């Protein structure tokens, strides 16, 4: 018994990695379904888009790269789907250079496939990537065409039907940022909301979710989707389960495993220490 407990306290971490990998893989393969509740923060973000009048322009900013895809890609898909369903006019852009192709991938998967009636230039515009961060946002508040003289497809921005109506950031009904760090949500709060009064919402990686709680509490941020969980909750709200909903069951089982490891490790540690003291 003593040997077993001692072994438990000195277990090679590679066994833990293997157990974690197998748990996640099995959960995905078996497709375990666990119940999901929607939190108030996610509902608040959903309501922001839901209450905008039909035809309102919204800015979607892809501020992440493929490294954060599992958390933010399903969320951006769900929010884009919601905006299209509500007939909002979506202006898309990105602050992260390696994230720009994700906008195109999302346009192709969500808009062109599910909403083929939507016309580019009239219902949605992809401005693509631009560096400049805060300077870019301030320039956009003056003139979007100055900040983005051409869109992702090299069209002149000021010739697009939608951009003739939406000339500045201040014309937007809301800004939605899918944020994996800086530049991202904080920058939009600091400039779009605090300086120009445009409501800001969005999602972030789970790592940065606690940081945004303060902005949520103070009303500077209208709702927040933290990590894969936030994305899964939004998928529930738009009634279109996707990668995040499937992933959350694996997520929950992985958490059970971690809690189990922590409990077993601590029990083994305290029991072996007690015996050594005796």
């Amino acid at each position: 018994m003593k040997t077993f407990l001692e072994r438990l306290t000195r277990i090679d971490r590679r066994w833990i990695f293997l157990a974690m990998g197998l748990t996640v893989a099995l959960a995905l393969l078996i497709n375990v379904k666990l119940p999901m509740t929607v939190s108030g923060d996610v509902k608040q973000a959903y309501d922001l888009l839901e209450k905008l009048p039909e035809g309102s322009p919204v800015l979607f900013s892809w501020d992440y790269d493929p490294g954060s895809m599992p958390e933010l890609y399903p969320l951006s898909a769900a929010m884009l789907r919601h905006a299209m369903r509500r007939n909002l006019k979506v202006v898309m852009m990105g602050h992260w250079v390696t994230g720009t192709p994700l906008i195109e991938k999302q346009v192709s998967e969500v808009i062109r496939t599910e909403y083929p009636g939507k016309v580019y230039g009239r219902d949605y515009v992809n401005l693509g990537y631009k560096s400049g961060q805060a300077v870019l946002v301030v320039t956009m508040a003056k003139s979007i065409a100055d900040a983005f003289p051409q869109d992702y497809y090299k069209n002149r921005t000021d010739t697009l039907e939608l951009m003739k109506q939406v000339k500045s950031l201040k014309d937007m009904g809301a800004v939605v940022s899918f944020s994996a760090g800086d530049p991202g949500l904080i920058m939009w709060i600091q400039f779009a909301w605090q300086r120009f009064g445009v409501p800001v919402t969005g999602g972030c990686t789970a790592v940065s979710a606690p940081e945004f709680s303060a902005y949520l509490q103070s009303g500077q941020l209208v709702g927040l989707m933290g990590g894969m969980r936030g994305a899964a909750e939004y998928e529930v709200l738009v009634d279109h389960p996707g990668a995040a909903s499937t992933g959350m069951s694996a997520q929950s089982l992985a958490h059970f495993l971690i809690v189990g490891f922590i409990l077993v490790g601590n029990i083994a540690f305290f029991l072996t220490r007690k015996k050594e003291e005796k």
Partner: protein
Amino acid sequence: MAVFGIWLGALLTLCIYSFLYKDNPLYKFAEHVYVGISAGYFVAAEFHNVVLPNLWNPLTTNFAHKYYLIIPGVMGLLVFFAFSRKHNWLLRFPISMVVGMGAGLSVTAFLSTDVLAQTQATLIPMNSLNNFLLVLGVLATLVYFFFSAEHKGFIGAGAKLGVWYLMIAFGAAFGYTVMARISLLIGRMQFLLGDWLHILK
């Protein structure tokens, strides 16, 4: 081509995950490929998305109206003097401009967003348990970081309470971090089992 991309992605993913067993040449290869491709992509994207539409095209097609673009253009070119030992002092001009502009923009933004608005959000009536705990937590945590007085008596008790609040915050942050890391694993698993092996339902 898409199948080739998926196979390449899957093999590079396995190379990266091989680090979990131990450091090895396959991991190092994938790491270097990632860094190299990112850097190359960044340079090409900046040139096509920023330099051409925002500087070169306006200067060559509509020069009469946008003289001021010459200034950032010249500033940008001065950056290349970083490679010259004799003239690298010229680099100071673009750097000072970027630092000055960055500081000017971020100081006001930080003050209004993170200091004034957050202070205002803490000045709330203590008419509910939530509000009371929020104000108490802010005060106790501030007391913990107050080092001009010894942490004894009333201040000591406040500092201890502050430590409890900090621990709860760190615990929440750690929980979210674990969630984020597992999400990444789930994403890769969905790619390997779904897009690559096609065994996901």
